[in-house]
């Protein structure tokens, strides 16, 4: 059975720009336009525009929405104000991660979840099953097909944004968003602009209708061209997030990985700030893991010398014993060295920054140094 790839509303733009296309999560997506390294540098130094319309969006609405979300996700959603977004995880009862996601609060009874494209079906099944079991007084609606998503990222992002519209404040704080009135932002009927992203740079993510997306894309590219804005593909998106040390579901985070293991304890709130326990799905297992000691830990590393330690390669100690596995690895354009993330036993002998380990790259062992991300803010050793 062959499956037809889905396309985003910007597919013809990518083809016209000569992008190299690749199937990703069931979508025909641009990997690169001019080249991953050029696009990566543009985002670090000026700005890049990404089409990430493949991401999923789910509306959760109704009087019971807040209580339902507090049960669904690991972070404390009661702390989220109107106009604010929050990074969080949803877990199985086992504590393993179903997905990592952003929650957006429009009002106490009106929320949006943004989920990974590769997990849309799994997430919806998980959310709907919890919804049915809990009897929560809210609705769950998949809005993925009706929502395009563009990410404008880089130090020039807000300057470019100001050129096309005054509907988004230049000083919009991190993890805050605005929903400009109809027509106020590049003629969009309904649009959300949030100061969020996946690159480690300032920038915004723009949620709009598929019909509005090409106009927004064209207007931004034109407005930012002289500032160095370029279209950027999924290749640069991956090297940028890896340099920043961000988890990517399916790599650092999986159904078998708890958020504690993946270094996401900071979005895993077992109690509210008043000390009330939060009973999110998976909380019991995570509480037990925390009490017993987290068995493994995600660490960052920089390759000392030549070579790239890629996903799946074994991590070995100085005695050559296999102690872990690389979850993501690539070349850091900023350092000019290989960088990566991987799991090792939760023991300071392996996790302390500066610890020397090695990665088995095909036939040889490549030395690596445990390093706390973001990697691009480190001095090359």
């Amino acid at each position, binding site marked *: 059975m062959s499956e037809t790839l889905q396309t985003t509303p910007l597919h013809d733009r990518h083809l016209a720009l000569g992008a190299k296309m690749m199937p990703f999560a069931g979508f025909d997506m641009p990997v690169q336009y001019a*080249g991953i390294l050029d696009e990566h540098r543009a985002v670090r130094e000026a700005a890049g525009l990404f089409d990430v319309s493949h991401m999923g969006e789910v509306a959760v609405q109704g009087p019971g929405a807040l209580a339902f979300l507090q049960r669904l996700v690991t972070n404390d959603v009661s702390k989220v104000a109107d106009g604010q977004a929050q990074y969080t995880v949803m877990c199985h009862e086992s504590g393993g991660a179903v997905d990592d996601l952003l929650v957006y609060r429009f009002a106490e009874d009106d929320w949006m979840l943004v989920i990974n494209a590769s997990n849309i079906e799994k997430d919806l099944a998980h959310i709907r099953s919890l919804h049915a079991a809990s009897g929560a007084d809210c609705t769950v609606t998949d809005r993925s097909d009706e929502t395009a998503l563009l990410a404008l990222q880089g130090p020039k992002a807000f300057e470019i944004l100001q050129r096309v519209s005054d509907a988004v404040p230049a000083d919009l704080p991190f993890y805050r968003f605005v929903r400009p009135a109809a027509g106020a932002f590049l003629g969009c009927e309904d649009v959300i602009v949030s100061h969020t992203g996946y690159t480690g740079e300032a920038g915004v993510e723009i949620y709009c209708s598929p019909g509005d997306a090409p106009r927004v894309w064209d207007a931004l590219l034109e407005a930012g061209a002289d500032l160095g804005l370029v279209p950027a593909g999924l290749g640069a998106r991956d090297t940028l997030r890896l340099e920043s040390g961000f988890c990517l579901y399916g790599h650092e985070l999986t159904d078998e990985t708890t958020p504690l293991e993946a270094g996401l304890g900071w979005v895993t709130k077992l109690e509210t700030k008043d000390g009330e326990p939060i009973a999110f799905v998976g909380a019991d297992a995570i509480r037990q893991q925390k009490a017993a000691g987290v068995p493994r830990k995600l660490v960052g590393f920089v390759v000392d010398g030549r*070579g790239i330690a890629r996903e799946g390669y074994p991590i070995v100690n100085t005695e050559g014993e296999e102690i872990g596995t690389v979850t993501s690895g690539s*070349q850091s354009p900023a350092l000019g060295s290989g960088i990566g993330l991987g799991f090792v036993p939760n023991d300071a002998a392996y996790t302390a920054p500066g610890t020397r380990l090695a990665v088995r790259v095909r036939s040889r062992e490549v030395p690596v140094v445990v390093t706390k991300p973001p990697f691009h803010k480190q001095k090359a050793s």
Partner: protein
Amino acid sequence: MNIPSDCRYTKDHEWVRLDDGLAVIGITDYAQGELGDIVFVEVDVDEGDEIGAEDPFGTVEAVKTVSELFAPLAGTMEAINEALEDAPETVNSDPYGEGWMIKIRPADEGDLDGLMSAEEYAHMIGADS
């Protein structure tokens, strides 16, 4: 797509050009384009070593992926392009020129005839339509 007619080609996307009795070897324009930004070229065979046809002689690492390199023909390793150590991106910018990787003294120059012509290679990668 640049496919010079003075080279022979392999199914693994290496090119060979005979230059003064030496087989100069690199990867094709198509291969560098598919790999994307190249960040390391590693040759595992030393100068003076014997190498057999289709033997691996090294790897090319791009940002996204790694690919093995295979000798298009048997012979003796005569030279390795040391300039690629500091400037691997030359393989992207000039794959048939400054981006060459190794030179082999062929055991039998006639082996080149067994490799694909530019026309055959163009057909294989679908660049002839």
